[in-house]
């Protein structure tokens, strides 16, 4: 573990930006650790890494890290990221977003980013609720779960994030949890490495709101529940459907080769310029 923190500290804006805004026990910090380890393992030049985020608890992540960091408007991180990436295709562009940010207000940008297949890695931290504004239901809040704006239970159906991303055309789609950190490190690593649009859902806990309003206990209890409920995709494929029902499937949902947008555009430039 000591070695792990050394790596982490290398990338923090430690003197300027701490303590952070997150509640004690929040899963977002775990995702931040995974992201750092993935970037470190890939040995990316940090001048050529841009983290882009929207609005919400998860979107506060980039400010703590010593990269090029861009904290945008609510839901628009992928739109801003598209501009950064296309203007400078050498840049490793990583978007940090949440379930409300990416799928409600940013839903349009989300599906079109998947479709466009630009080499952007989108880490969607799914805590199933709007944390920053005080626990309102989000597009991933389970049906009949409670939220501050769903006092009688949520009447809507949630998005299945990997299905949505795959349907929209993402090249790499994976889900990990903040309990299964080693796996999450790997998924983020592979997502960044993938040339094309990658979506990594990082399933996380908001014990402060989602946990409290639904009597799920504290952070530790929610993490334990995650451990119990998670089921690797590969294992699930060999199990009867009734045993898979209600489980949180983790792993790589899709990893396909499609020519990347900036590469295609660059080829266009080359051909127009007669090179």
């Amino acid at each position, binding site marked *: 573990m000591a070695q792990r923190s050394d790596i982490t500290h290398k990338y923090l804006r430690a003197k300027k930006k701490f303590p952070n805004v997150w509640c004690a026990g929040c899963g977002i910090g775990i995702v931040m650790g995974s992201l750092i380890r993935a970037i470190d393992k890939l040995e990316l030049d940090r001048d050529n890494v*841009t983290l882009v985020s929207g609005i919400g608890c998860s979107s506060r992540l980039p400010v703590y890290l010593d990269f090029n960091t*861009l904290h945008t408007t609510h839901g628009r991180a992928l739109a801003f990221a598209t501009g950064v990436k296309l*203007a*400078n295709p050498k840049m490793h562009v990583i978007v940090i977003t949440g379930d409300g940010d990416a799928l409600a207000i940013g839903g349009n*940008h989300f599906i079109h980013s998947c479709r466009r297949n630009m080499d952007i890695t989108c880490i969607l931290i799914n805590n199933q609720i709007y944390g920053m504004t005080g626990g309102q239901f989000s597009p991933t809040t389970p049906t009949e779960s409670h939220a501050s704006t769903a006092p009688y239970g949520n009447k809507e159906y949630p998005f299945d994030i990997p299905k949505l991303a795959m349907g929209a055309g993402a090249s790499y789609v994976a889900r990990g949890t903040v309990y299964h950190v080693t796996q999450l490190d790997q998924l983020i690593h592979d997502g960044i490495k993938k040339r094309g649009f990658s979506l990594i859902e990082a399933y996380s806990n908001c014990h402060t709101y989602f946990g409290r309003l639904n009597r799920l206990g504290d952070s530790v209890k929610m993490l334990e529940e995650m451990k119990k409920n998670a089921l690797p995709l590969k294992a699930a494929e060999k199990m009867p459907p009734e045993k898979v029902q209600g489980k949180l499937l983790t792993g790589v949902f899709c990893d396909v080769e499609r020519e990347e947008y900036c590469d295609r555009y660059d080829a*266009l430039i080359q051909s127009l310029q007669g090179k």
Partner: protein
Amino acid sequence: MADNIRLMQGNEAVAEGAMIGGLRFFGGYPITPSTEIAEILARRLPKVGGKFIQMEDEIASVGAIIGASLAGSKSMTATSGPGFSLMVEGIGYAYMAEVPTVIVNVQRGGPSTGLPTKVSQSDTMQARWGTHGDYIAIALAPQSVRETLDLTVRAMNLAEVYRTPVTLLTDEVLGHMREKVTIPEEGEIEVINRQKPDVPASWYKHFEITPNFKSPMASFGDGYRFHVTGLTHDEEGFPTNKSVEILAKLTKLRNKIMRYLDDICQIETDGMEDAHVAVYAYGIVARAARQAVQMARARRMKVGQIRPITIWPSHDKKYKEIFSSKNLEAVIVAELNQGQLVYEVQRLVPKHVEVISLNRFDSELITPAQILNKIKEVR
């Protein structure tokens, strides 16, 4: 005939000006009557290694150009009223985060979906007050196709110099009408690029408050690794809740434009020395006003013309001087809306000067005859 003379639409002139001004990134969403701008740039930008992208909506378009500008490309989008409404969120962000961007609004009739193919000047106030929060907008308005070209380059220059979004306010008629344009030679129009930092990364502050309020701008990838946010921030870009830093930031944003009104604001006047009546109009309406003033002068009426080229910000001091012209009794404010800039004129004229509104919002242009009739009524 020289091959640098062309019959050209206003929208083509935007694209031509953009190429001259060094545009390297355009992100847009189709909307009448602005679409030709995107169509032309989709063809031309990749030929020079620039990038064109059609985004999923106008909110994404403005987001993409902000991102591209931060990555170092001169960036622009073009739209019309309904799209401009969606863009104001991003314009506020570009203002707060000091990102050079150009937004072209080819105005059409509103409100709402309104009149997609008809002329209007009803987004005049939106260009000033569109986004939430206090801010100082820069908006330029051409009256001809050639001036559309020139002001496109100027809009890009101002955006880069003042690190702020700049709106080019044209309209459906200007965008679609064709006029003879002599394409300027290379170097004929001044092109200004953003000032880059020359300090080591550890000294660099992306939002530094300097004595002249201008701060050099690094791009992502230059090795400076700065933070950008729409939250109120300190000089390094980190969010702040300290009132001292909040005041410093918001004052800087204001001063960096308001201290340079002499550079930013262009106002054209004609015949104001002896004018009893002045016609105040911008854009396409200024063309009708010009003819009306000439007709009136031919009838020995002492009429002058005032044409704001920079619509926003208002150069109050300069306008007060113009409106204090010793014989001036009345100002006719002619606009293709229900009365927007008239409030600016009312605010700035001396008490004894009457302000008369001449509005048209039935989708047709104000004619010289209409303006002449108004002049006669005053006399």
